[in-house]
């Protein structure tokens, strides 16, 4: 009996360490839609406190423009220097099932206290980024309501604390991270230093989020996981309320061959496609409305030690043309972008090597010029990650940028744009 008690104790200890026998296998079905929008049925706490901190240092090696430094050569969100330490993200949130006896309803609440486009544009030091309730009553049609990430690009939809790089691709930064200017935002030529910090809008960036409702679910079949999402939202970013009668629609599909693992670094081969479509009302001329459409397809392969992600996007209408001319955002131009990301987890080590090439071309249909009035952004980023543990890691990256424009004023800003170094520590709790 003593031996039996020892075995029972050993079994308990092993189980606590996560040892699961071969008798039963676990199946972890998760993807970004499910990870962010749902909880494990009847197996979630009433309140789970969680969050993460990211602290970084960035250094831009660009050359001085004739009158000083302009935003492409300055570190955001403050845009007043070429180097600096920053706590760019400090998020704390709560999630769970408010009434544990009813596992069909869950919530997700997250706030941002770091210094980035979410807070710097808001004029304060904190902002709510997610506040949603999910109803899981109908099989095949879960309903999520509130403020949350919109279904779309892999780079935008994924959880930022497991993002393999520090800075976004230009495609995500300019094409997807929507700016929401308002009356009173300074307009005019790009301001060089020491006034370059005027080159930002007074409201938060959209942070790939919207307020609305989403119908979604995931279906498993023969080792594949098929997911869909259809969302209708205000098209007004993090702002709780709407600013016009137009609504955005979002559709998303993914099919993933699941290899194993769970959570944000689950291994698999995922194919995905998405579309976002809406209209915006010009804050300067409220009789003017402008389309904003984004579409993309991509693939993500992750099976250690290798990772490959590729995505292409096209954009019509509402193409971001720079922080200094908010009214010019209400245009009807075109853009397209793409990126290819490769990762290698060095076997038997905590190191990971990353390389990413991204390209973005905007202004392909510039209304005020002849043909070929385009601006092109090409960036090659090499990086490495050191995983102290599953919750703590160090990112380092070096981005080699090559920008060129057919528009003289933009080309002046781009001349001298050069490399950028960044190092960032992430800790998740």
């Amino acid at each position: 009996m003593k031996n039996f008690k020892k075995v029972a104790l050993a079994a308990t200890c092993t189980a606590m360490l996560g040892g699961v026998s071969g008798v039963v296998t676990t199946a972890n079905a998760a993807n970004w839609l499910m990870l962010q929008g749902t909880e494990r049925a009847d197996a979630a706490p009433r309140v789970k406190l969680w969050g993460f901190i990211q602290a970084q240092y960035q250094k831009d090696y660009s050359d001085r423009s004739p009158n000083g430094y302009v935003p492409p050569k300055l570190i955001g969100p403050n845009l007043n220097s070429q180097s600096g330490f920053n706590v760019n993200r400090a998020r704390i949130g709560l999630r769970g099932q408010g009434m544990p006896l009813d596992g069909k309803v869950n919530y997700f609440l997250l706030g941002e206290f770091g210094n980035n486009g979410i807070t710097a544009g808001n004029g304060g030091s904190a902002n709510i980024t997610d506040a949603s309730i999910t109803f899981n009553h109908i099989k095949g049609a879960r309903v999520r309501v509130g403020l949350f990430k919109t279904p779309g690009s892999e780079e935008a939809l994924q959880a930022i604390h497991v993002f393999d790089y520090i800075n976004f691709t230009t495609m995500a930064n300019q094409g997807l991270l929507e700016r929401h200017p308002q009356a009173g935002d300074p307009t005019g030529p790009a301001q060089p230093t020491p006034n370059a910090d005027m080159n930002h809008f007074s409201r938060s960036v959209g942070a790939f989020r919207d307020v609305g409702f989403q119908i979604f679910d995931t279906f498993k079949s023969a080792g594949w996981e098929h997911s869909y999402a259809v969302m209708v939202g205000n098209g007004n970013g993090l702002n709780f309320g709407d600013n016009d009668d137009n609504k955005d629609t979002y559709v998303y599909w993914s099919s993933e061959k699941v290899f194993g693992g769970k959570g944000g670094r689950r291994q698999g081969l995922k194919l995905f496609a998405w579309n976002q479509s809406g209209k915006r009302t010009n804050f300067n001329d409220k009789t003017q409305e402008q389309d904003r459409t984004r579409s993309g397809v991509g693939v993500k392969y992750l099976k250690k030690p290798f990772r490959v992600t590729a995505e292409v996007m096209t954009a019509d209408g509402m193409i971001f043309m720079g922080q200094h001319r908010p009214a010019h955002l209400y245009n009807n131009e075109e853009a397209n972008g793409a990126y290819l990301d490769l990762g290698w987890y060095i076997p038997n080590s905590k190191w990971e090597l990353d390389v990413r090439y991204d390209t973005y071309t905007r202004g392909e249909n510039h209304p005020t010029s002849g043909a070929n009035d385009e601006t092109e952004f090409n960036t090659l980023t090499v990086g490495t990650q050191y995983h102290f543990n599953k919750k703590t890691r160090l990112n380092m990256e070096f981005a080699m940028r090559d920008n060129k424009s057919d528009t003289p004023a933009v080309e002046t800003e781009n001349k001298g744009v050069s490399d950028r170094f960044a190092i960032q520590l992430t800790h998740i709790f």
Partner: protein
Amino acid sequence: MKSNLIKAFALLAVLVTPFIGSQAIAAKSFADAKVVLQISDPNPFKQTLVLNVASNIIKHYGQDNVEVEIVAFGPGLRLLFAENANKGRIASLAGAGVTFSACANTTRNMGKKLGHPPALNPKSVTVSAGVVRIIDLIKKGYTLVKP
């Protein structure tokens, strides 16, 4: 002749007894491998933990040589809700001989809060009171483990 038979029988008995003894001891130890696992905690991690423990016990002894019963009551009864995320593992463990007992008292009280009785996993059996079930099993030689 009679004395020779007695001697032969005695010798046989001496030779065989240790073997029979070891068999009996082995059989007894298998029979003693009976464990009741208690889950009454609201922490969802405990759900995973109690299933892992049951799994590991079965792996060690073999499913034919051990009796495992998981008794759920209080907040721990959520483990045995019909739609619980662990229902796949519960079905698998039930197939391996694990018994799942749901407390009727808890079910009734939860039903009052919900407005209807919670739907329970069909692999579970209802017992009148979880804690009484544990006491009864202990009396029958089960070892209580509360992960």
